[in-house]
């Protein structure tokens, strides 16, 4: 039996549009740092991992920092349940990602780039190393890249070891430094005090892939797609109950119901936008749009049809967070376990509404009191699923979907 990952020919308005290897790097070297930052600023590109911080600002802060070393780190620790766009980019479009890293290195003045590849993607390590070797051969990495004097830059790949929290940028840096992947207090931000204490840009794989296109085709071109607050397009990782799961490049601002049509989802009851840490959106809100201004997401779209038991879905998410909490701060470490106790009580039909309301309050406390994004977002699904599906989950006296076939 051969190990198998499907790949296919794709097309899309921005990320999957035409691009030849090294085009972006050549254009970047012509443009110069100031102009690259200008185009990025015009483009309005925001971080594609989910948090949505403006990329131009991140780069400008690092470019302006006074330090004798700087780093660009590509966050390929794609661990959010339901997200697999980085897998597609790294396997099928490495030129976009690596050119983006080189452009970032040139712009901020870094000499090394690091890709933090999740341990689960170790099977990609060899093809990616081979790709880097090709780039070195063609002087897209190394000394005086493409004849640009004093532009010396190289990329190394470092593996994770199975920790979701390392997708958080400061935890990722801790992990790169050889420590437990426990998030740091921010500020200081990595743009100021990052890897080994040096100014560091940490960008998502998709962000860097978008950069290659923006540098080549311009910020105005990029901005033509999407909405005014969410410019460009987004890779959506679609899974769950639909005919055509996979990665789709769609402009920001698309309605959830439009996306459901494209992927041929039928009898949809709910859509989890943003993975386990995202929000569960019920049928009545399928008019909502995907974008930073409404339903923001790193791209994970999980579809549930009428036959799914939403309590079971919620339990699966909470198991995930209990396991993946780094254990450093109390709201997250204990809070997730308390929420799970509530889920088990509901399952057994042994709950009171005041107890559930207390747990929702606890969830809201976790959202403000947790140290990093993991604990701040882990109660999202608990709160949104119980609110949207109270009838199914709580009004059946804990028997779950007794009237629906599983």
């Amino acid at each position: 039996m051969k190990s198998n990952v499907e790949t296919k020919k794709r097309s899309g308005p921005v990320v999957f549009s035409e691009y030849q290897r090294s085009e972006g790097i050549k254009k970047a070297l012509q443009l110069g740092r100031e102009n690259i930052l200008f185009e990025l600023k015009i483009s309005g590109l925001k971080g594609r991992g989910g948090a949505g911080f403006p990329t131009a600002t991140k780069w400008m802060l690092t470019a302006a920092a006074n330090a004798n070393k700087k780093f660009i780190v590509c966050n390929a620790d794609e661990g959010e349940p339901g997200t697999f766009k980085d897998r597609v980019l790294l396997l099928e479009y490495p030129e976009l990602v690596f050119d983006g890293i080189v452009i970032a290195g040139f712009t901020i003045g870094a000499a090394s780039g690091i890709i933090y590849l999740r341990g689960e993607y170790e099977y990609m390590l060899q093809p990616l190393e081979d790709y880097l070797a090709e780039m070195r051969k063609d002087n897209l990495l190394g000394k005086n890249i493409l004849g640009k004097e004093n532009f010396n830059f190289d990329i190394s790949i470092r593996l994770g070891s199975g920790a979701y929290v390392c997708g958080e940028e400061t935890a990722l840096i801790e992990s790169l430094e050889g420590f437990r992947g426990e998030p740091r207090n921010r500020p200081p931000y990595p743009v100021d005090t990052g890897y080994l204490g040096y100014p560091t840009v940490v960008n998502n794989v998709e962000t860097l892939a978008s950069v290659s296109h923006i540098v080549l085709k311009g910020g105005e071109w990029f901005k033509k797609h999407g909405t005014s607050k969410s410019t460009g397009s987004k890779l959506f990782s679609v899974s769950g109950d639909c005919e055509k799961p996979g990665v789709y490049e769609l402009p920001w601002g698309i309605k959830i119901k439009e996306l459901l049509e494209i992927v041929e989802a039928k009898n949809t009851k709910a859509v989890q936008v943003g993975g386990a840490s995202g929000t569960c959106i019920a049928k009545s809100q399928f008019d909502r749009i995907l974008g930073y201004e409404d339903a923001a997401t790193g791209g994970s779209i999980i579809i549930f049809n009428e036959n799914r038991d939403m309590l079971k879905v919620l339990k699966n998410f909470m198991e995930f967070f209990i396991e993946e909490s780094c254990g450093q701060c109390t709201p997250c470490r204990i809070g997730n376990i308390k929420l799970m106790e509530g889920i088990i009580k509901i399952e057994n039909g042994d709950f009171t509404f005041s107890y559930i309301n207390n747990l929702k309050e606890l969830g809201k406390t976790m959202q403000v009191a947790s140290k990093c994004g993991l604990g701040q977002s882990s109660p999202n699904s608990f709160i949104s699923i119980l609110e949207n599906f109270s009838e199914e989950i709580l009004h059946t006296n804990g028997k779950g979907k007794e009237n629906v076939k599983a």
Partner: protein
Amino acid sequence: MFEYEKNSLTEEIENLVKHYGSDRPALLQILQAVQRKHKYISDFAQQEIARLLNIHPVEVYSIISFYSFLCSEPKGRNIVRLCRTISCDMAGKDKVESAVKRELGITFGETTNDGRITLEFTNCLGMCDQGPAMLVNDKVYTHLNPETAVNILNEVK
């Protein structure tokens, strides 16, 4: 552990330190290399790594205990990790799980008597569009059904 095994392990770790360096960022890479080869990081290996990196052995252990792909107890020659996250779950993970358990006669978290396979669950593998999915060591298998999953495991030496 025999004396000669200890000596060869020390030599191996010394070589890893030569390759990755003795600075702190090398620690995780060294541990990953030992894990890859031996499927666990023994107490002795932990002590040797600590000695060569000039840190306390507890520091080494704290890294192993944090990362789910590292472990300090022996495991089987092949580690099988079945994805249990929601999309694979909805795609039929439970059926694959019970077929594999029946076939190997062990449950998840255990190792077969002949030391051939350790079964584990893992969180999202990034194969949600092709589930159910599992990793066998570092290889990924997708679109599993009970039969294909068992066939894959039967081929593992």
